């Protein structure tokens, strides 16, 4: 069974081979479902010149934002950024390249990258700054632009559970970009809350088959909440 056992036991091993100027695709939406410890390992390694592909760039002291102070990120491809001051400073100073990509297009680019689809047409962004330099074409009287797929040298992913073969299950909206990122990395590294024995996961209920996963590590997670919104316990009773 050794051949399919993807488990590694240290974060150093998990991110081995990551080098300066590589492209890293990260799962997560805001701070939800982000590979916290894999990001910390990138910070610890001090890798520079990274191109990051991720829907967001974390906050000042959590998520991908922690890679900003040491200028580890050269470029970020994201749909929504700027929840932190250092990001803003670097972007305004021209130290950080930002390629804004519509959220759905970004998701589809990752999926396409993993699926061997080099490019696809989408109506999203037609007639907007996103369309600049891209081919435009009509199908059935509607306007579309051509978008190319994305792959990364590494993909870093957070899942909930996995078996040792790397079959993954995600939990609630922490799924988001993670299954897509998982398909699009030359080396896909996944951290999970729990590793179970092979055979424990229902084959019908696996979100990401292990074929996409190269390395797997069990971690502990802070799971910081970005917008903590609650209602009083009493009013919720009638829900």
């Amino acid at each position: 069974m050794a051949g399919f056992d993807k488990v590694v036991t240290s974060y150093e091993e998990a991110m081995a081979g990551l080098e300066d100027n590589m492209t890293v695709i990260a799962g997560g939406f805001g701070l939800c479902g982000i590979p916290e410890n894999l990001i910390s390992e990138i910070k610890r390694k001090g890798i520079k010149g990274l191109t990051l592909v991720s829907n967001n760039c974390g906050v000042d002291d959590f998520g991908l934002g922690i890679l900003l102070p040491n200028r580890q990120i050269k470029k970020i491809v994201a749909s929504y950024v700027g929840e932190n001051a250092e990001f803003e400073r670097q972007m305004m100073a021209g130290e950080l390249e930002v390629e804004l990509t519509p959220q759905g297009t970004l998701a589809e680019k990752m999926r396409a990258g993993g699926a061997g689809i080099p490019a696809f047409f989408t109506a999203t962004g037609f007639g907007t700054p996103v369309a600049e330099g891209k081919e435009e074409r009509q199908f059935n009287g509607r306007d579309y632009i051509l978008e190319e797929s994305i792959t990364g040298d590494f993909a870093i992913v957070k899942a909930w559970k996995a078996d040792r073969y790397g079959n993954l299950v995600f939990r609630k909206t922490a799924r988001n970009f993670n299954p897509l990122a998982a398909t699009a990395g030359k080396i896909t590294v996944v951290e999970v809350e729990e590793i179970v024995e092979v055979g424990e996961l229902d084959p019908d209920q696996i979100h990401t088959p292990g074929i996409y996963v190269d390395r797997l590590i069990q971690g502990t997670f802070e799971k910081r909440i970005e917008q903590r919104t609650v209602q009083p316990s009493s009013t919720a009773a009638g829900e």
Partner: protein
Amino acid sequence: MALSREQIAQRVAQELQDGFYVNLGIGIPTLVANFVPDNMDVMLQSENGLLGMGQFPTEETIDADLINAGKQTVTMAKGASIFDSAESFAMIRGGHVDLTVLGAFEVDANGNIASYMIPGKLIKGMGGAMDLVAGADNIIVTMTHASKHGVSKLLSNCTLPLTGKGCIKRVLTDLAFIEIKDGKFHLLERAPGVSVAEIIKLTEGELVIPVDVPEMQF
């Protein structure tokens, strides 16, 4: 008198139908969920991967793994489903969402919308807005009719970078409910107590005014 944020949301809610799958943007659109008519069921789609968004959680039920597109903690309604971001935007881009409600900086008489970027100011990104306006057939834009300084937001041509081209057909402002058709704004309803003259004054794009312009009913 100009509608309050709540009244805008309330008027939008009248456009809901039983069984609608709805995506509500951040801000006023979010408030629409508070005015869903009794005996009517709608399901809220949150583009980060949730169909069937419920209320905010309590302190006891809060879950870091369960947020909406505004990154707020939420709950799931009965019959909810979870999916990845590609599937979520397949739903949106494929036209499966029945109604999308979102805000804007400007809308023009050709159905163009500008909502994500003010040059010279910090650019935070379009998030899912470009996908939403490109994918939905049925969109209602909510915004104030004009800026605080009286500058119209209903223009003959948008001045800001576009979020989408030719995709907006209905706009609900604090003053009026307007349809966009044939390169013109068509005044459908006015806010209670707001005169047609006032709406004309604050609409820069060409405005078609029917003989009778009913007041909105609440």
